């Protein structure tokens, strides 16, 4: 019984992983393999994350000593 459950779970995992791994390429299969494909994944946000990480603040502090 335990073995059967393990087998069943393993088959489900394998199927899910195989399908998710192939899904990104589904669109290429609808076109001509010999032509370069402009895939929409080329424009995903992750391909060009915002390059601005900000900078340290430049507000002046009161550094002088009493006169």
């Amino acid at each position: 019984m335990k073995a059967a459950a393990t087998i069943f779970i393993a088959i489900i995992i394998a199927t899910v992983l195989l399908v998710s791994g192939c899904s990104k390429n589904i669109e290429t299969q609808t076109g001509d393999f010999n032509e370069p494909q402009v895939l929409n994944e080329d424009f995903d946000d992750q391909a060009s994350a915002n390059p601005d990480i900000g900078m340290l603040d430049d507000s002046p502090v009161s550094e002088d000593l009493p006169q």
Partner: protein
Amino acid sequence: MMKNIFLMLVMMIALTGIAVADTNDTEINDTDAYTIQSQALNVRYDHLQCKVSFTIGQIELFEEYVPDAVNDNLSDSKETLETDMDNLKKYVDDVNKTAFDKYLEDTFRPDFQKATQMLNSIKEDFRQYNVSNETKTELIDELKDIREEYSECVSDKEFKMGTVMERHMENWNRQWGNAIERMKQKGMNTTEIEALIAQINTKNQELNSLIESKNLTNFMKYANEFRQDHLRYAAKIEAEKLKTYKGMLNSESKRYNLSDRNDNIDKHISEIEKYAQKDGKYQEKEFEHAWENVKEANKEMKDLSKDVLKERTRERMHNDSDYEEENEDDENNYEGRGSRR
């Protein structure tokens, strides 16, 4: 025995699924950009803490040695600045740069400026408080000590910011390396993009040598200049990428009557290039406008490429079914001729 072999086979299939799924994952590690942004916010926060601690430390010293000099406004400013820091910390923990920047600009800076001006005012008119020489000497020694601590605190944060900027550039270069590879595989010319990347990396090397040699005397000046340059180059490079992809889809988008989408993309590119070509000191929030256009343009390119592919497929299927009908007619004609013989 048979049961064990069967179990092994199933596990092998499962592992194969993992391996195949892995190779299809994007090479870009989105976590890196997020982690770097988080690190940058943390260093920026800690740097502000150096300033706030130094300012509050000075107020407390004046409260101890020259209580008459500290009015309620200055005394209350300690709690105001601590509240500001608590609020900024929430945005740091949420890795929310936009909210952090807004709060910094709208609330923290004005509060900090007020406290600084009040302290400066006390120091400039110090004689009016008739403090004994002995008290003044003790106060000045204490002020020097906390000023020394402040200086060390700030140097430490500048060095840390420098290392975060190094990691940021490594990640940015890696992302662009991957993007260029994809473009080349599709037959696009990436010469212009690669030249721009090489130019900004030359400037990056100058900043890196300062950080690595721990020569931080002019760090803020160089770091600010580099950031300005990097953002302008980044905008130029994004615009080049969009123009290159648009060029590749140009003839098909005309053929499938999708040219109006090109016009929208052109408007975004124009806004991005306006920013990229600007001169002069970087003004905060300038880049945000350019980046909004980058995101919109990418979204529209994504939709355009999907629609071009759809139309291309539809056209091919239509052509294939015409071809099959022609063949069927030819076969019928041939059989007819055969039977007439």
